[in-house]
């Protein structure tokens, strides 16, 4: 695959922890790959698995869903539902052909600026290795 492949990563970050964590990364001047495009949501429990599928269909090569650490959810239990949903969705998408390595679910607290950078760097590299995702999208080869 071309060396110049720059994965497009879509990140769904919960406002209270992971988005604040990403903010921390920025304010601390810690570099992280600009491959990620961040969508701020109130809670990881708000991230409908439908959005993840849509992201892949609309141009994402990889998706990050990040929330508060279990037990620390701003709303109490949103991320605990998310944890179950994504445990299922990740293996299910893999079953449909979207490699599990393309979807990462992480718990990042507001103070984990370093960690957020690390997660994004790891995911970007992993998706770069997996290559561009073009399946189940407009313009892909239909079955013959």
């Amino acid at each position: 695959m071309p060396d110049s492949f720059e994965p497009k990563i879509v990140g769904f970050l919960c406002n209270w922890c992971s988005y604040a964590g990403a903010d921390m990364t920025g304010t601390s001047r810690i570099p992280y790959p600009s491959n990620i495009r961040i969508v701020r949501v109130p809670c990881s429990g708000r991230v409908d698995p439908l959005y993840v599928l849509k992201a892949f269909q609309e141009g994402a090569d990889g998706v990050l869903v990040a929330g508060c650490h279990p037990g620390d959810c701003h709303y109490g239990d949103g991320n605990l539902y998310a944890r179950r949903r994504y445990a299922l969705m990740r293996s299910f998408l893999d079953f449909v052909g979207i490699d599990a390595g393309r979807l990462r679910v992480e718990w990042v607290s507001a103070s984990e600026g370093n960690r957020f950078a690390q997660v994004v760097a790891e995911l970007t590299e992993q998706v770069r290795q997996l290559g561009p995702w073009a399946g189940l999208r407009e313009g892909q080869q239909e079955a013959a």
Partner: protein
Amino acid sequence: MNHEIQDGIRIRARELLSLGEVGCVIGHERGPRGRVRPVFVHDAGDAGRLVWDQTCHHNLVVYLRDRAAPSRRGDAPLRAGIVARPCDVRALNVLIHEGQVARDQVFVIGVACPGMLAEEAEGAGGSLAEHCRRCKERVPLFYDALVGEPPPVDAVVDAWEDLAELEGSTPGERLAFWIREFDRCIRCYACRQACPGCYCFECLAEQVDPQWVSIAHRVPQKAFFHVMRAYHLAGRCAECHACDLACPMHIPLSLLNRKIAKEVKALFGYTAGADPTIPPPLATFRKDEELPL
């Protein structure tokens, strides 16, 4: 054996209808071309129309949402009798659990089921459908009356063998498989309409505002519908295979639902429709659980 079940159904239906215990009995009849199809018998005198054999694969529970829903406008809904195999009763249990059907509005004529014949085998007195060969339930989880003698459970077949080939493939191979399968989908929604678990007033695939998916009949849109429908049945799918059987293009849709059911079982020890006292897995959580993410 089939004759015994058929007679049992007719006797029970005649009794229920003549005593006025139900407004109708939902079962099967033979259509003008010899194939079985669902039937709604309203009079005791028509009970003779009811038939039963190993081609009666329709999950009739799908009709109960209209028939036995808890009253919304103050009218008492008609009580319905229904012919139900073990898989059908699991689906019914899901609907009861979700408040879509009230248990006391349904008289379940449970069938001790010997399994359905494979489509190709019909008429040739041949083998059971693949999903029936795997099934270990012979008697429905609950019933108001049972017809038939429970046949023996055969030697255990690997519970998830239908998934093995795909699970053993690479993601790329799996993608190619699903593209081939979704290619001939005509977006007729027969799978969704035949599914007892799909009762949304407006399906995400048809919603206008927001429009989650375009109306195009192309693989990306069809894949979106099938993936999201299967996901919305996570922990709810009774694995009755009504979707496979309804599909005019014979797409093996149940593979999607069964993959999720397998993960639900492995991660949460939960089987849809088995025990209504257990909260559905996606409607709950355990604080300290470790899940593969």
